[in-house]
């Protein structure tokens, strides 16, 4: 009854959702409407699938496939890679739904279709979608009793969900895996996995899955004949469904409790539960579940020896099985009806049922079904003393037995031996008796196997039904949960809109006020900017002043050589001429060599002076702002010398040990040389200043007015300049062993205008400019390490 508004709601939601998706993903209009159509068709197909309307499911899925096919083709032609994967996913989803739709008609074809979907989805690399297809394939195998394959695929899906990191899907899939483990008789594993899934789901508050887990646990407990535990788990699930007021869910629990009670031997209780479940289900469109309830009731009545009433229920069940359209279920309905007729006994009617089963089992490839029907037919013939006919069916059963549970094979050999015996063919009877014993022995050896087989036999179709129900109702619960979520999101969105509107009005009023304020602020800002420009210039000039002394010294040295070497060369020329006149060829040549050497030196020192002047010009000039490949070691070395002589020029007493440790593997790095040079200069000048400060305080402590340089000072001012390449970064570190930086000013040192120097001595812009140059100008880092009274180390980190 809930279904109609439910579907309409899906439509509305889908409309909203896909329109938004179209906008977000930026799909062109035609694509948007097509993807929208495909999504709706696939939703409808799924809807129909879970309502067991497989023909409608196939109809919608095929339409979805047709549109997604042509969309995919047109995108491939346009080689529009952006949407290609989206289209592939749509096609794969359509194919998966087609697979679901035809599973009852042609299992192999359904599986093939799923495999095609899998191939397409692998091209997109979308793990989530791939996992979903694995889940669908796993469900198909499970439904058809191929538990090993089912396990394989559910595990594949589980791994992918883990990889994707979707814990809700992971927990859900863990439940699926547990169910396949259970079907394989690995009850311990099944329970362990269910516990894990329960833990995750409880954390996620995923009610839908929590119910699933309780139900699945109930089944496992039933299988290991712990009825109390089974009923306990089911009770928990019932509680949740009751809270949710979910009548179909309640019916399902009644159903499962019925199964548990049946297994516990409490047939009357079981009957009551199944009848309650049936009452609810008769009001639903779920023919499937209605069949199951009739079948359970029939079984219990048959167990109680009430075959007439059992037959009535089985016939009702068959009717609903046929309405469901699932051939595998129809087959089961015929089988149980046949077996009931056999007990009635009405062998003619039984025979009709079994012949139908044979027919259906060949269509669906259900070996177990064929085997069971063949054995039943054979036993009818045996009862009629038609041994040759019996043998014919038994031999057919033997052929089908290869993939069926062992218990049936045993029965086949037992009956074959009996037939031969009755026919007087003792040799063959003996041989088949031997085979029977063999099978029986191997069964006896593995008691567990026997137990499992017995239980599987007993609960086979119940199991199948439960599985189908589990997956169907699970999907429904998930869908409902999704809708609730989306509804919630939409509500949040709506209230968000109202809030935004109110805020908008407030903002507009504020905007008018702000506008006035802004005009004032703009004026202030312009003034500030001018001041800042002046200050930056002042900082530059200040550091230029520091440089000048250094530069003077640096220039005097090369000039000294240039002047003197040129003078001495002039003298040497005269000497050379004298020697030539005297005929001392050898001496004249030696002098000529000296002159040549001198000219080279003059050239070298001339270039040196040139570089110094250029460096000075670069420093005073505004940065060109262009990065160029620069030898960072040469740059650092040059500025170290400039800074040293600058400090020396300022403070005659100053001296420091300079240590350099250059990493020669760095090569050229792309930087604005004059900017980084300025940073290095600034850091080194600071380092020297720190050393000088500590020297001064050390001298004062000695309280000695005479010349400090004469003392055997324990403190050796040392500045270390280091470059190092680390991976793709280059570190330039400047470390001094001065007084360090006090913790309380550490977070201020990069702020503009912060300085520890006496008023008038520092602009307070050195480090803040350095910081901006390194971080904003070069995308690097400027870090500081310090310990008070011991050292300070600044590290420039640049990209190599």
């Amino acid at each position: 009854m809930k279904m109609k508004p439910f579907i309409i709601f899906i439509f509305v939601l889908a409309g909203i959702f896909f329109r938004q998706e179209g906008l977000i993903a930026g799909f062109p209009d035609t694509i948007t409407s097509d993807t929208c159509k495909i999504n709706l068709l696939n939703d409808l197909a799924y809807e129909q699938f879970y309502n067991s309307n497989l023909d409608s499911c196939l109809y919608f899925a095929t339409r979805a496939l047709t549109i997604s096919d042509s969309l995919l083709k047109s995108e491939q032609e346009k080689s529009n890679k952006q949407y290609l994967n989206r289209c592939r996913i749509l096609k794969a989803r359509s194919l998966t739904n087609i697979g679901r739709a035809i599973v009852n008609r042609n299992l192999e074809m359904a599986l093939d279709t799923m495999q095609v979907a899998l191939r397409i989805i692998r091209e997109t690399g979308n793990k989530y979608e791939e996992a979903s297809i694995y889940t669908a394939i796993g469900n198909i195998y499970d439904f058809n009793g191929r538990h090993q394959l089912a396990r394989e695929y559910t595990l594949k899906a589980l791994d992918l969900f883990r990889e994707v990191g979707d814990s809700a899907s992971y927990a859900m899939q863990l439940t699926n895996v547990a169910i396949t483990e259970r079907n394989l008789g690995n009850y311990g594993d099944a329970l362990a996995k269910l516990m894990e899934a329960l833990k995750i789901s409880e954390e996620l508050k995923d009610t839908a899955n929590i119910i699933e887990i309780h139900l699945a646990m109930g089944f496992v407990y039933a299988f290991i004949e712990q009825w109390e535990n089974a009923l306990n788990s089911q009770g928990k699930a019932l509680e949740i469904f009751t809270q949710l007021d979910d009548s179909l869910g309640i019916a399902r629990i009644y159903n499962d409790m019925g199964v548990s009670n049946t297994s516990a031997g409490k047939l009357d209780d079981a009957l009551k539960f199944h009848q309650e479940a049936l009452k609810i289900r008769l009001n639903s469109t779920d023919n499937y579940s209605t069949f199951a309830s009739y079948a359970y009731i029939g079984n219990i009545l048959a167990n109680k020896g009430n075959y007439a009433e059992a037959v009535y229920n089985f016939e009702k069940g068959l009717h609903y099985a046929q309405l469901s359209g699932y051939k595998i279920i129809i087959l089961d309905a015929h089988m149980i009806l046949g077996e009931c007729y056999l007990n009635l006994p009405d062998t003619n009617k039984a025979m009709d049922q079994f012949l139908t089963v044979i027919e259906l089992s060949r269509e669906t490839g259900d070996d177990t079904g064929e085997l069971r029907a063949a054995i039943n037919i054979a036993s009818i013939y045996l009862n009629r003393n038609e041994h040759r006919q019996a043998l014919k069916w038994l031999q057919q059963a033997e052929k089908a037995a290869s993939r069926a549970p062992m218990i049936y094979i045993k029965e086949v050999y037992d009956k074959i031996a009996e037939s031969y015996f009755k026919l007087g063919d003792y040799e063959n009877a003996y041989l088949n008796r031997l085979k029977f014993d063999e099978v029986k022995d191997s069964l006896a050896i593995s008691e567990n196997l026997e137990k499992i087989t017995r239980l599987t036999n007993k609960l086979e179709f119940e199991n199948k039904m439960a599985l189908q129900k589990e997956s169907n109702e699970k999907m429904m619960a998930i869908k409902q949960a999704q809708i609730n979520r989306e509804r919630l999101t939409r509500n949040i969105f709506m209230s968000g809109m109202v809030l935004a509107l109110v805020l908008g009005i407030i903002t507009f009023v504020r905007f008018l006020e702000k506008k006035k304020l802004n005009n004032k602020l703009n004026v202030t800002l312009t003034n500030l900017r001018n001041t800042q420009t002046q200050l930056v210039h002042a900082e530059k000039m200040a550091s230029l002043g520091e440089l000048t002394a250094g530069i003077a010294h640096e220039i005097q040295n090369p000039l000294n050589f240039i002047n003197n070497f040129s003078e001495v060369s002039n003298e040497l020329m005269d000497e050379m001429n004298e020697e030539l006149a005297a005929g001392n060829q050898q001496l004249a040549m030696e002098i000529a060599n000296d002159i040549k050497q001198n000219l080279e030196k003059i050239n070298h020192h001339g270039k040196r002076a040139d570089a110094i002047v250029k460096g000075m010009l670069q420093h005073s000039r505004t940065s060109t702002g262009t990065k160029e490949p620069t030898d960072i070691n040469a740059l650092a070395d040059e500025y170290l010398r400039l800074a040293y002589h600058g400090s020396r020029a300022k403070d005659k007493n100053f001296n420091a040990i300079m240590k350099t440790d250059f990493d020669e593997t760095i090569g050229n790095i792309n930087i604005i040389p004059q900017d980084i040079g300025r940073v290095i200069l600034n850091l080194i000048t600071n380092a020297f200043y720190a050393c000088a400060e500590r020297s001064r305080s050390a001298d004062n402590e000695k309280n000695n007015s005479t010349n400090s340089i004469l003392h055997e000072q324990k403190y050796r001012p040392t500045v270390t300049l280091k470059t190092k390449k680390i991976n793709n970064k280059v570190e330039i570190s400047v470390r001094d062993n001065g007084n360090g930086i006090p913790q309380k000013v550490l977070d201020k040192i990069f702020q503009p205008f912060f300085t520890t120097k006496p008023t008038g001595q520092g602009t307070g812009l050195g480090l803040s400019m350095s910081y901006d140059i390194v971080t904003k100008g070069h995308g690097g880092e400027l870090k500081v390490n310090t310990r008070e009274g011991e050292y300070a180390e600044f590290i420039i980190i640049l990209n190599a």
Partner: protein
Amino acid sequence: MKILVVDDEKDVQVLFEQRFRKDIREKRFEFVFAFSGEEALDYLNQNQQEAVLILSDINMPGMSGLELLGKIKQKYLKPPPVVMMITAYRDDENYNMAKKLGADDFLTKPLDFNLLKEKLNHRT
């Protein structure tokens, strides 16, 4: 006369050897070179009193010329050798400091070798 020249600029050696080539040839002067203050002290410690005249640059990394001067004049050698200071700065502060520390003379860069020769000849 043995003269110790102290300067961190290595080309100073070639310059002196060429400028004083005649004096060296005629053995009037003998030159020894040290490229840092520390190196100069090492040399003086190993060769007591050998050098009677020291010519030192002031601006050098590590031990400065003034520091070296102080050590030579007040701590190491008795009687102390003649020490002449050379600097790139023609400023009073450096000059006064050098004088205070006992420098015998003061020269500025670029070095006037004719003047230096005169002073050296005057000392011998």
